[in-house]
């Protein structure tokens, strides 16, 4: 039977068509259209978000069971689109400042976005692979977006080479799974696994697939690319990397673990355990001696992915809900943090060393106080939102009796608090350096404002977001 119901994929289709259209506009009109295309892209994303909220979230599978829209993927998509809007809004001015005015930038972000949206809807390993690659290829290009810059090119090449390696692992894993199961739909795998027929072949395939995704979310020990790429890529791209793809890849991982692989929770639990443990420890320790803010954020994201994964190891609805909440809060905090980092310019130069933040509280008090709030939140100090993110994750770990993992997580979060607090100390107690430009564009203030509002006001109504995440997690476990 041919299934022509495309309604559940409306936002993706709309975005893909828009991206093509904008590409044509750009190709004919040249780079001067960057600003128009960017804001048009933001508009299109908002429209897609609107569509997403209007369609029924229980429409089920489409395109011959290649994709599906359920509550989980819909909620994740909402936040992916919000993240895309934020990263586009943050980057426009940056491209002009850095003199890399090329109209492909917003189009690449839109295409990466389409890939991510499809990714979390995938119900088949092939559609998963295609969507993942659409996303990854866009990211590789973005990493090398400043073609003339040595660092940026290096970052692009590194990311691409290692990404290719991980894609290879993914495909190899998928082929092993096919060998074990005889099908590639998630349901087929789930059925075979649930029947108790867990062959070593299936497990090895699963390990490959998880490793490939661990690369995408930069979980240790597949994290080595992250600091180099974060530092090398143009800052706007780094912001994008930090804000959105992590959420999408992690959502995909959740979908796999709680779907086709759910019957093998005993096995993947061990893999995730190791990944979470290593990530938290690496994220905490390696960042201690970093001088570059972008590198610091890279390690911070490694550590935070580790905390998010602690919730997954619990393999319970509460754990999944905790992980999702953590990821979303982290996304908001990162957006705010990069709104500030992108504004750190002196003259024509971006300044990114920690020492450049000295005395920011006197030269740009609003940025300094905003950053301080976000950093407090990231280090998990109440009453900021970050505290509750960590709280629910560790709560889930304790409920699943993962005492060792929980304890190590807490200890490493204490260590990690050091480098967040060090930044605050530098901003508030060190004598100011030369003034920072105060030409921060309005869009960046908006992103920062939303982020700060989320971080500080979360405590007053935590139930709203938490209930949303609970319903997302529940929908995975019912089906």
């Amino acid at each position, binding site marked *: 039977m041919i299934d022509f119901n495309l309604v559940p994929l409306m936002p993706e289709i709309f975005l893909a068509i828009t991206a093509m259209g904008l590409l044509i506009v750009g190709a004919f009109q040249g780079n001067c259209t960057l600003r128009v295309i960017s804001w048009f892209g933001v508009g299109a994303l908002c429209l897609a978000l609107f569509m997403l909220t209007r369609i029924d979230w229980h429409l089920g599978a489409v395109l011959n069971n290649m994709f599906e829209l359920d509550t989980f993927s819909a909620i994740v998509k909402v936040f992916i689109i919000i993240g895309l809007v934020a990263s586009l809004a943050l980057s426009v001015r940056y491209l002009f400042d850095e003199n890399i005015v090329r109209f492909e930038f917003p189009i690449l972000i839109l295409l990466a976005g389409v890939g991510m949206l499809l990714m979390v809807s995938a119900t088949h390993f092939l559609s998963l692979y295609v969507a993942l690659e659409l996303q990854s290829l866009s990211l590789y290009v973005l990493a090398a977006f400043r073609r003339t810059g040595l660092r940026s090119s290096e970052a692009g*090449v*590194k990311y691409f*080479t*290692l990404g290719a*390696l*991980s894609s290879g*692992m993914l495909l190899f894993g998928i082929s092993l799974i096919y060998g074990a199961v005889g099908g590639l739909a998630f349901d087929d795998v789930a059925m075979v696994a649930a029947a108790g027929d867990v062959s*070593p072949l299936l*497990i*090895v395939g699963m*390990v*490959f697939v998880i*490793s490939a995704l661990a*690369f995408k979310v930069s979980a240790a*020990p*597949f994290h*080595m*690319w992250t*600091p*180099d790429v974060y530092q090398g890529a143009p800052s706007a791209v780094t912001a994008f990397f930090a804000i959105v793809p992590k959420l999408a890849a992690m959502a995909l991982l959740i979908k796999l673990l709680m779907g086709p692989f759910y019957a093998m929770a005993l*096995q993947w639990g*061990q*893999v995730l355990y*190791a990944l979470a443990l290593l990530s938290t420890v*690496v994220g905490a*320790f*390696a*960042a*201690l*001696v*970093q001088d570059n803010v972008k590198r610091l954020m890279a390690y911070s994201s490694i550590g935070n992915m580790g905390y998010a994964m602690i919730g997954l190891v619990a393999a319970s609805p509460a754990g999944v809900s905790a992980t999702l909440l953590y990821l979303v809060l982290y996304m908001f905090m990162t957006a705010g943090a990069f709104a500030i980092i992108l504004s750190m310019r002196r003259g024509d130069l971006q300044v990114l060393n920690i020492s450049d933040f000295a005395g920011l509280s006197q030269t740009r008090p609003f940025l300094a106080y905003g950053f301080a709030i976000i950093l407090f939140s990231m280090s998990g100090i109440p009453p900021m939102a970050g505290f509750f993110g960590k709280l629910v994750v560790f709560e889930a770990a304790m409920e699943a009796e993962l005492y060792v993992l929980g304890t190590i997580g807490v200890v490493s979060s204490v*260590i990690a608090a*050091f480098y967040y607090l060090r930044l605050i100390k530098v901003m508030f107690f060190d004598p100011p350096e030369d003034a920072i430009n105060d030409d921060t564009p309005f869009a960046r203030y908006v992103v920062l404002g939303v982020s700060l509002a989320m971080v500080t006001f979360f405590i007053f109504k935590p139930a709203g977001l938490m209930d949303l995440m609970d319903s997302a997690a529940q929908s995975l476990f019912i089906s």
Partner: protein
Amino acid sequence: MEFLAVFTPLLAFVVAFFFGKALGHKGAQVVTCAGILLAAFAAINLFFDVALGGNARVVELAPWVISGDFAVHWSLRVDTLSVIMINVITIVSACVHIYSLGYMSHDGARGRFMSYLSLFTFAMLMLVTADNLLQLFFGWEGVGLASYLLIGFWNHKHSANAAAQKAFVVNRVGDFGLALGMMAIFVVFGSIGFDEIFAQVADKADVTFDLFGMHVHAMTAIALLLFVGAIGKSAQLGLHTWLPDAMEGPTPVSALIHAATMVTAGVFLVARMSPLFEYAPAALMVVTVVGGLTAFVAATIGMTQFDIKRVIAYSTMSQLGYMFFALGVSAYGAAMFHLMTHAFFKALLFLGAGSVIHAMGDEQDMRKMGGIWKKIPYTYAFMWIGSLALAGIPPFAGYFSKDIVLEAAWADHTWFGNFAFALGIAAAFMTAFYTWRLLIMTFHGKPRATQKVMGHVHESPPVMLGPLAVLAIGALFAGAVFYQPFVGGSGHHGEEHGAAVEHAAEDSHVKETDVLHVSAEDELKKIGAEIEQEVKAVVSQDAAHTAHESDHGDNTHSDAHGTGHDAEHGADFWNSSIQVLAENDTVTAAHGAPLWVKKLPLVVGVLGIWLAYILYFKSPTIVPRLVEGMKPLHTFLFNKWYFDELYDALFVKNSIKAGKLFWRGDKNVIDRYGPDGVSAVSVAISKGMSKLQSGFIYHYAFVMMVAVIGGISWFVFKFVVEF
């Protein structure tokens, strides 16, 4: 109304403190004064609504802490007890706010000063409107903070900083007791809400704690722990040393915080917890003894001091002692009555003293004053009114309240009641003495200040005299007007009396506690009726006397024939916000005290005034000889019974010694192997990790492959082991 009364000062504080720079001093002054005046207006409205209209209520605002069995809400409990406090606080605070406009007019940070005053007022209001112990504790600590900020307001003075710290630290000791008491209450009652506690008190009267093998009576332990908190806050003997030093703060602060309101928080706490204290007779005994001793000791010290503010401070401490022994003999109404009248006349005295200090160019030593009464006649008159009220001369406010306190102590007919009565009479004598000593030394005799200072002596501006006038009205009339409602009747408690039960049936606004007692009404009704018969008999014996007292100025309740009506009015007025067991009802019994008990306070008061007149006015030459003759005693009193020196030797020195010891241990053991060691190791690990981050793609790829192969090997290994 209650929102307006409680939250306007908070709003004023927020505006004046956070936008003080933008508003300027003028703006901050206007905002805070407007706020407090609005609050005072609302408070007076509340008084008519709640105390006279019998409209007590609890307004829930928001949940605060909900954790398992522990649930606490922000709420405003507005009953007679709290509404009296609200009125005292807002009215005195309004006077002090206005007064401060003049008194602080040359201070560089007067806007901030006003905002602190508003903050204090808000915290104090939170304290008295609390519906549970945690909110009370919040207010308790809030007033402590405001007190700290205001004592040390002139922070360029070393002595002010030291005094502020002393007040804070000494109060910590008391707060610790209060916190322990709260915890004990939660253990015993499973709640810290007042209604829940009071409803269970009668059932849990015999509960005991097992502590280190001893059986401790729970109610006594709780009551004593709460009382420790009260001792600290209300500067009772033992934890009183901070109060005299607190006089380092600006005078309006002394008037508001250290005379009228904050220091009475302990009295309020005991009155609020009266249902619980009633079941802890041993604790009440302790309260009585401590109160009596405080009244006495403070009065003896007050006689020897020369700093005008310190004299009044010791007088405050002494009067607080009166309130406490009134509480101790279950005369809660009398204690609250004295609290209210005292708030008026003591604030008046303090602000009057402030006016003198202002006039003398910041001179506080009475030895350098004298002979200025003609130059500042209004201040002089106001000081007379305050002094007459303090000494208990009719018809001033202090006469009524001090008398009922002393009569209640006598009417308790216990050894500690008599003890407190004796000490109280002695203190009353000394009170009158040192008050006139102050008046005479300050205003009469030959001028002892320099010519230059004398030339500058001037009457305070109207903005300072206005509040004095308001307070003077309180000091004049508060006693006579409020005598009947506060302590006038017989059955002013809501316990097992027949009267209370009848009320419960009539009145739709009865409190939960009453309703509970109704359940046992059948058998109690008989007993209640009998008791009431007796009570009426006792009271009617004294009807003539009551009528006589009513003539002094009160015409609203002077129905001499209707003691029964009075009885009901008393119960109505308190509306169960304080509760007394039938056998402890000393306020009623006090009305039956013999004439000599009733007149003795007045007699000794007049004697004290006469003695002061002789010694300081008529023949001042006697004093030095007298002091010489009683050198050891005088030195002992002048040095405040050596409390400070004792505490310094016992606690302060040893604490510093212990602190140094621990500091060394901390630095050499814990720091070296703890924080310093761990951070060194962390940095070493971090550097090692950075080295792994070589930057070469093939290294990265290698690590990835090793990880994958490691993972697969792990599962293969397990698989092999299983088979």
